[in-house]
């Protein structure tokens, strides 16, 4: 078989290589470059080695933001995943009602992030907002710009409002893919509603749920726009999540070096946690398969 070896096909990859280089690799390497240097402006840079990394790892400010970030992601996953499943289960299965429901459910997903923040900022204002005003009229003291707990509650409510639909729609798709025969068999076997959920619906939703959890984790871990518009990270630093902190450092204080080191570590943490998530879920799946 005298096959001609022709390596010229590699040239066809060049356009995409250039695209990726300019959109990700070069900017990323610039950040890497910054993270090892210090500057006092005037485009003069000094090599500082691992100094920024060392400093950041001992910075209380960063660890606090990291802790808040983990807590936030944990809480919204805890609310959005079960709530999304519940919504998906109670959505109509076919007909006009199903279509209307789907459109309504997708609306929050289509709203630009900063508009979501603005909506909730107005909604929660104690003087004119529907929510804030109602609560204060009811005699409940509520002020998201002064009380840390209120701020957290509002940010979480906003995220749940914004993103539960995504989980619900994914689960809905998973549910719709279950053939009717399963429900009929369950009826014949006299399975309870809980059994139907536990042994038919949940196993069939497993795949989409994994994707939902992963997406929601990554997104919530990188959340910036909505809490920034709503609380600006306040009161104090109460809702300053990692990315808000990062922007403060990079643009507010213009500490390019530490901010670069910060973003690289941030990136690695997300990568690491997502990887662990993914591996654990995949291997749990394989264990099921094997046993």
């Amino acid at each position, binding site marked *: 078989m005298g096959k001609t070896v022709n390596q010229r096909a590699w040239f066809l990859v060049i356009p995409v290589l250039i695209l990726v280089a300019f959109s990700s690799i070069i900017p990323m390497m610039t950040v890497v470059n910054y993270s090892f240097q210090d500057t006092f402006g005037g485009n003069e840079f000094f090599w500082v080695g691992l100094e920024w990394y060392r400093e950041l790892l001992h910075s209380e400010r960063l660890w606090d933001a990291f802790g808040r970030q983990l807590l936030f992601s944990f809480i919204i996953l805890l609310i959005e995943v079960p709530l999304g499943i519940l919504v998906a289960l109670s959505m109509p299965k076919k007909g006009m009602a199903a279509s209307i429901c789907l459109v309504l459910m997708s609306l929050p997903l289509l709203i630009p992030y900063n508009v979501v923040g603005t909506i909730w900022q107005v909604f929660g204002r104690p003087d004119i907002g529907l929510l804030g005003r109602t609560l204060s009229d009811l005699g409940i003291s509520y002020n998201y710009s002064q009380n840390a707990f209120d701020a957290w509650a509002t940010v979480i409510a906003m995220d749940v409002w914004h993103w539960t639909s995504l989980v619900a729609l994914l689960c809905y798709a998973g549910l719709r893919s279950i053939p009717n*025969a399963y429900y*009929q*068999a369950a*009826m*014949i*076997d*006299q*399975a309870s509603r809980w059994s139907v959920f536990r042994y038919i619906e949940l196993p069939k939703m497993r795949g989409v749920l994994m994707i939902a959890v992963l997406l929601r984790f990554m997104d919530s871990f990188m959340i910036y726009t909505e809490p920034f518009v709503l609380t600006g990270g306040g009161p104090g630093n109460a809702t300053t999540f990692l990315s808000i902190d990062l922007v403060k450092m990079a643009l507010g204080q213009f500490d390019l070096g530490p901010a670069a080191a910060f973003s690289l570590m941030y990136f690695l943490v997300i990568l690491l946690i997502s990887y662990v998530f993914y591996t654990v879920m995949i291997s749990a799946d394989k264990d099921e398969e094997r*046993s």
Partner: protein
Amino acid sequence: MASVTLENLAHSYRPNPGEDNDFALKEVNYTWEDGRAYALLGPSGCGKTTLLNLISGLLTPTHGRVLFGDEDVTASSTADRNIAQVFQFPVVYDTMTVEQNLAFPLRNRRMEASYVAERVARIAKMIGLEADLKKKARGLTSDLKQKISLARGMVRDDVNAILFDEPLTVIDPHMKWELRTQLKSLHREFGHTMIYVTHDQTEALTFAEKVVVMHEGRVVQIGTPKELFETPAHSFVGYFIGSPGMNFIPVTVAGNIIQMGDRTIHLAHDYGTPSGELKLGIRPEFVRLTKGDGLPIRINRVQDAGRHKFVNATLFDTEINIAVDEGCEIEADMTSVNLDAEKISIFCDDWRIDGKSAGHVEGSAT
């Protein structure tokens, strides 16, 4: 166990059915006797699954009644009817083990643990799932999964009937035969009433004692495989059963003499002077190739199908098939056919009509 009676049963998926064509299942009256094996045979979309779902209670009929024994179950839920159903695709609870799958219907009915264990062990042994009891259901092959769903139905000792909805569709060909054989022996051993829906005539004819043939929402014939083959009540049965199906040749009939092209044939029976569209029907197996004696044909092609050769020929502008035994040579001067007069059926507007001196002809419906 009980017999299943269908009384004026009909079903339409439309809200206000008017004419006949609105009905997915047109009116049917029949009693499925206790402990027998039936097959519901027909092409896709003929209403056989509708009929099955009416019996199992997954659908409520537009009108008519379903009785199990003497009890009217038309309004009862599927669970109350105490039937088992095996679906087209294996329906198993993936995350459970085989054992848990079998125990599931019993546990849901709050049976005692010792009874459940004993029952599961017994059924597993019967169906040949013993070795797999501890395995998770999801990793198993589809024939094993189909066995699980069958076993899940049989694990209750009080099932009224076991319904099969094309259960072998996704099974590998070499396993089909084995499962079918096993079904038959389970039926012989336990005598459940079994109703088996299929579009495969081989499956229907080998499995069932009685075959119900459906066509366009109507039950056209109920009979033994032999009756369906020899005396089809409707031209559809003739065409659908047998491979290739019955030959149909347009004719005119007067008494026991039929006119076909420019020839006349004398029949064994007297049909009077029926009015309507008349056709002569004869199976390829009962047409014989001859040298010059009989009706003239032109041979188009010969197909070897193992035990038979099938000759496709033209007889008075109508294509017919002739079955020739493997041993027989087809010679160049074989240009005529003889029809076995005893085996000729006459159809008037697609329904079989009986000749006067006919012996027993059963199962015709109008």
